[in-house]
């Protein structure tokens, strides 16, 4: 196969595979087989199209071909006799309908199937790592190799992870459905968590030499935008997308020319992507219309406070401190408290913030979290206690997992001495 065709296959796979896999999973109740058959259909199509011409509607063509293959599969296995009759009927009745009607009804159905697939890929029977890999594979259309590269893992590790995840789903007989009311909340949280995990791994890589891996941010944003289309009534879906859009808007500003991280308050705000900010603020408005704010929406509101401030001085720190308090009530965590302390220090003075941070430090929950000494160093520096500040930055550097971040913290430790000498 020529390189051109291979690249076309990759592109078509990316666009079409999630829908095809979703529909076939509904028909076959087996994600693994659905994926294999989808791959077969795609390869066949791309062998035939160059000779016979690409059909007018490649999506519909592939869908019909995939459904046929699924029915053949069921027939061969002689399983689910009644199901097979029903599906055959579905396909035949579609053939009798005008094309536009088929497309419209197909779109709705496919949407439902995609949503089910998302819930299955993010099912709590799977480990977090498995959920992430499976979601990127099945819904993002990434190849195993691409996922492996993005996560700096050997390809066989990811391939195994995906195979095992599919087996677990089959063994546990995970239902291909959107969970009902009571269960929905928790299951949706898992979907949102997976998307946000992918985003965060891209935004602040937990390992490796690069501070960011923007491709992963892009994948997460895309998944989030797709989910918004599938669940437009869920406030938190809009909230998560708003949060990711606004964070992504800072991508250009948060790394300097040498690849070093630039802190939020030191970023050149002219480099923030206004298009993404606008998209984020729009998403936030839709979240407000859809219902009560949850943790993602509140975090997006905090991010929006920064996005709206054209200068650091214009930041509404009182509002940010309030929002962190709201967030702390929803999801109590020492990390949220630490952020609240930062906002309070900006709104009401460094000492108020330091009091909170000291209380947190005494609690020991954040003993291994590099941002605690980092924030403490910051506040001590503002209060002129440079020797203590330097010590805190060094401690923070020793705890930081990201190489770029560690360098930044060591630099800040060194700067403490210099500032003291020059003042």
């Amino acid at each position, binding site marked *: 196969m020529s390189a051109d065709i291979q*690249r076309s296959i990759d592109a078509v796979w*990316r666009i079409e595979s999630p829908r095809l896999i979703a529909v076939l999973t509904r028909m076959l109740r087996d994600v693994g087989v659905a994926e294999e058959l989808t791959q077969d259909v795609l390869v066949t199509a791309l062998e035939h199209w160059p000779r016979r011409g*690409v059909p007018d509607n490649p999506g519909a063509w592939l869908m019909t071909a995939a459904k046929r293959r699924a029915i053949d599969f069921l027939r061969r296995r002689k399983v689910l006799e009644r199901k097979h009759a029903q599906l055959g009927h579905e396909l035949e009745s579609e053939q009798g309908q005008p094309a536009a009607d088929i497309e419209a009804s197909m779109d709705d159905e496919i949407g439902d199937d995609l949503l089910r697939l998302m819930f299955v890929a993010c099912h709590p029977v799977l480990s977090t790592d498995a959920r992430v890999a499976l979601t990127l594979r099945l819904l993002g259309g990434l190849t195993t190799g691409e996922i492996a590269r993005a996560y700096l893992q050997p390809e066989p590790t990811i391939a195994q992870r995906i195979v095992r995840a599919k087996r677990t789903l089959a063994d546990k007989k995970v239902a291909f459905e959107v969970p009902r009311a009571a269960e929905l909340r928790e299951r949706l949280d898992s979907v949102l968590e997976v998307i946000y995990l992918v985003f965060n791994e891209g935004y602040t890589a937990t390992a490796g030499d690069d501070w960011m891996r923007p*491709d992963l941010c*892009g994948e997460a944003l895309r998944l*989030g*935008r797709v989910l918004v289309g599938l669940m437009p009534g869920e406030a938190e879906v809009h909230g998560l997308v708003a949060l990711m859009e606004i964070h992504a808007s800072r991508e*250009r500003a948060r*790394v300097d020319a040498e690849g070093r991280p630039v802190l939020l308050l030191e970023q050149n705000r002219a480099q923030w992507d206004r298009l993404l900010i606008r998209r984020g603020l729009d998403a936030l408005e839709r979240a407000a219309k859809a219902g009560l704010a949850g943790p993602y929406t509140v975090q997006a509101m905090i991010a929006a406070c920064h996005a709206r401030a054209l200068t650091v001085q214009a930041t509404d720190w009182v509002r940010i401190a309030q929002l962190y308090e709201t967030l702390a009530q929803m999801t109590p965590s020492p990390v949220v408290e630490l952020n609240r302390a930062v906002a309070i220090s900006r709104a009401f003075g460094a000492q108020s913030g330091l009091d909170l941070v000291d209380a947190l430090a005494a609690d020991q929950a954040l003993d291994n979290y590099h941002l605690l000494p980092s924030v403490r160093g910051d506040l001590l520096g503002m209060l002129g206690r440079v020797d203590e500040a330097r010590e805190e930055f060094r401690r923070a550097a020793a705890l930081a997992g990201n190489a770029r971040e560690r360098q930044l913290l060591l630099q800040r430790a060194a700067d403490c001495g210099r500032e003291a000498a020059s003042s």
Partner: protein
Amino acid sequence: MRFMVMVRANRESESGAMPSAQRLAEMGKFNEELVKAGVMLAAEGLRASSLGARVRFSGSKRSVIDGPFAETKELIAGFWLWQVRSLDEAIEWVKRCPNPFDGESEIEIRQVFEAEDFG
């Protein structure tokens, strides 16, 4: 990565006439697909160049030239901003776009610089 996808102008778009209801509907459906796939970042249609202007730079001098502009094929009639993983994916999407005009049309795909390109 992001791509700017531009529809080249022609006599029809330069005439200032609005596209037919059918074409708007087809384009609307295509745009909906792009949104659903999480690909679409922005989309705008541009009015005829007779309503635009150019500012020409020559050293430190600037001179304003009012539209319309003669070289229709060099103009653009509208654009999208897409987020996709490759040029091939952008091409695949463009192939699915309804023909923007009767007869001959052209759509140009250009990659946008990203933050890391400046690193």
